[in-house]
């Protein structure tokens, strides 16, 4: 049985025709199911657990990156298969998963090509795609063995699903592709050095594969995990033992 979790923004008139077309396609495939609507303050885990008790086997998230992060940050370890139908702007995770936008995503869903994906754990929540710590005076301790710090500000990006993009020069774009199934998370550290008068220059990134790391700072710093921002003083990040059973597309990037 399929359960569909719609983000609140898909009610917008702009997406009405697309959602209708998708629902028709899903009905054609015989995989239409119960529709639940998500609000900002809804915790997805108890809802999904309830549906699993009622016999749901597949939970499909309908929305964008934020919806994906919102649902899976709590319910990543639920005993079901997850699917994703990208709708609206801000859909980068769908590209990594190889799920096309629009009605074509229903075809991918019906094919049920499944992969087990690693999940990251940050303080008290899961993250699936990427964790971004905005530039601050940070100190990073890896696997309780060695610490890394920069002379000035430093930015940290932890990649799980999403590849990390960085520019060496303003014109060129070098790309690092991170495989989510390598059994490790990858941290990219970019120190910032002061420009001559004002502003900062980004240095080349350092890359550290890890299983557990802690980020400290004397002052609170901003952390963005799967599109959700919070202020922290200490962050413990590790690779969660649980894995997500996810329906992916043929053109996935891992």
């Amino acid at each position: 049985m399929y359960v569909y979790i719609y983000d609140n923004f898909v009610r917008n008139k702009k997406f009405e025709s697309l959602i209708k077309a998708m629902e028709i396609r899903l009905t054609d495939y015989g995989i239409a199911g119960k529709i639940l609507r998500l609000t900002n303050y809804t915790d997805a885990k108890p809802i999904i657990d309830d549906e699993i008790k009622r016999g749901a086997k597949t939970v499909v998230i309908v929305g964008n990156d934020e919806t994906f992060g919102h649902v899976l940050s709590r319910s990543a370890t639920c005993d079901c298969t997850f699917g994703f139908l990208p709708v609206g702007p801000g859909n980068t995770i769908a590209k990594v998963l190889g799920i096309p936008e629009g009605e074509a995503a229903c075809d991918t869903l019906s094919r049920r090509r499944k992969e087990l994906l690693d999940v990251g754990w940050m303080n008290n929540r899961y993250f699936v795609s990427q964790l971004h710590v905005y530039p601050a005076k940070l100190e990073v301790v890896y696997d309780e063995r060695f610490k890394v710090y920069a002379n000035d500000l430093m930015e940290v990006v932890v990649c799980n699903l999403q590849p990390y993009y960085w520019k060496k020069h303003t014109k060129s774009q070098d790309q690092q592709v991170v495989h989510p199934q390598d059994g490790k998370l990858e941290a990219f550290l970019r120190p910032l050095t002061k420009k001559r008068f004002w502003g900062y220059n980004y240095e080349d990134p350092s890359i550290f594969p890890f299983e557990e790391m802690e980020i400290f700072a004397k002052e609170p710093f901003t952390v963005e995990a799967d599109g959700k921002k919070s202020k922290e003083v200490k962050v413990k990040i590790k690779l969660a033992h649980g894995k997500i059973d996810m329906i992916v597309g043929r053109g996935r990037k891992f």
Partner: protein
Amino acid sequence: MDPTQYTSSAEDTVETVVGPSVNVEGDFASEGNIIVKGTVSGSVHTSRHLVVEAGARIMANVRAGSAQIAGEVKGNMKVKENLELMSTARVVGDIEVKVLAVEAGALICGKIMMPGLEAESRAMKKTIGKKFDEQPVMMDA
């Protein structure tokens, strides 16, 4: 060296890069290749390839599968296979290596040991010792 180039050549290995203006302190160990462009102090250990780029500093004992040094290393080095010292390399410490290549201009201050030669010298010592032991027996006869 461009890290992206390196990953493309060795895609199967996990790459660790210590970038410029980054300091690492402690027991720095990795299962994959390591590229150092910044500063490392404590100890460095990898079973694979270690690259220390020009301008990088390692103030630690180093153990690696193979290594290419163009920066500064202060500490003892134990390399299983090949060690390549580039013209800008500065090594202060003992080196234990199987195959050593030194480019003109590289500076080394320390003892260099090669396991193959060490075994030969031990054998030589043993034969000399035996001959020395045999002599007094001859004298007694």
